């Protein structure tokens, strides 16, 4: 099966300015740049390529119909979070899992004005995550991409809940420091 190579991500924030002006060509470029990311988040969380395809479509249609939902910052990080939240909705509404296992997320901010955000890319994040000890990286990735609560992480790993929470916090703090360092270099 032929696969598309990883794409170069165009500046989503700039393209979104044109999408707001109903520029279909800009939307197409936005889609070309970011659909693998949205599909990837959905596939990791739902574990089903057809559902991931549907979710990708719904996320981009939402971007087209409500372009003001994103105003500034790192478009890739924003749309990945949107995809994650939609995937949580799908898991919940289709009863694909026990409701108690599925977390609820806070808001998707329309403005991501943190300086880390605007300049970060996937390689920065991969390197920053790989700098974390496995005992911290693993619960963070399970929490983000597994679509499960901290209690479920504790249950699946057999590690006490208090330890999981502390490892998540310690790991996220280190991740933040690593990302700050990556963009200031």
């Amino acid at each position, binding site marked *: 099966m*032929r*696969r*598309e*190579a*990883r*794409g170069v991500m165009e500046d989503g924030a700039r393209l979104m300015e044109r999408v707001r002006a*109903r520029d*279909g*060509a800009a*939307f*197409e470029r936005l*889609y070309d740049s970011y*659909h*693998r*990311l949205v*599909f*990837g*988040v959905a596939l*990791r969380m739902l574990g089903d390529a057809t559902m991931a*395809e549907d979710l*990708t*479509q719904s996320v*981009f*249609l939402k971007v*087209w119909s409500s372009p003001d939902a994103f105003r500034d910052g790192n478009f*890739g990080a924003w749309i*990945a*979070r949107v995809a994650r*939240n939609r995937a*949580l909705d799908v898991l919940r509404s*289709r009863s694909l899992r026990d409701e*108690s296992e599925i*977390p*609820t*997320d*806070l808001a998707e901010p*329309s403005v*991501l*004005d943190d300086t880390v*955000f605007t300049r*970060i*890319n*996937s390689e*920065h994040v991969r390197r920053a995550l790989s700098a974390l000890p496995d005992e911290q990286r693993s619960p*963070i*990735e399970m*929490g*983000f991409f597994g679509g499960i*609560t*901290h*209690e479920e992480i504790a249950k699946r790993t057999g590690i006490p809940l*208090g330890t999981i*929470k*502390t490892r*998540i*916090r310690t790991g*996220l703090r280190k*991740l*933040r420091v690593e*990302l700050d360092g990556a963009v200031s270099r």
Partner: protein
Amino acid sequence: MNGAPEHDAMLDLVAVAALGSLPADELRIVTLHLATCAECRAEYDLLRPATDAIGLIAEEPIDTLRSARMKKRVLAAIAPAAGARRGSSAAGLVWSASLVAAAAVVFALVSTVQDIRLRSDLANAQRTSAQLQTRVAETQQTNENERDMLADLFAGNAKRYAVPNGEVIARGSHVYFALRTLPTLPKGKVYQAWTLAKGAKAVAPSVTFTPNGSGSAVVELPANATSLAAVALSVEPEGGSKAPTSKPTFIQPLS
């Protein structure tokens, strides 16, 4: 900061909330706490950008057939609105392809679904599919409403007014009470919010509510914040009153 072990435990929960891995009931507790604790809000603001960045590593190569099909579907869906700017040839191609695909589906259905049992199965599947789509849409709407509220509560440009036991938070046309450690009321009593419209001489009754077991409540007032001069809170009989019957817990002007 109070330095208590309970507060360290809350900071751990704030980190899990930033990751987006708390169940709804614990998220509500953290949300109430964040509305009134500057230290925890700072921790959340520090960690949330780091967790948002995690999504960037998810990009997956997609097989070319699937990728082409996905793109066709998305562009076809926006074609009516985008057509004028995209140029007629590209949009026309998309629409033509979609029409051909649709015609193929119709032909396949007509030619293969020949017995009543199959038709019945198909109708059932369509009903089930429609019900599932409705449930997905309803769940998304509920979650979007909740996220909108949370976005208002944590927005940097929200106006925050300190009141006894918490804050009044106004952002755009929305106004909220985010309250903690409210005294437990005797049976038959509830808290009631009041609004004073700009230029009005008397307050108007707003929502009634009962805090949770730890005395916390986040309540959105069903009023346009931009038209209000002040809000207030009082204790009233269950069911609410048309005019305050007790001394207000607070009266807060909205500047």
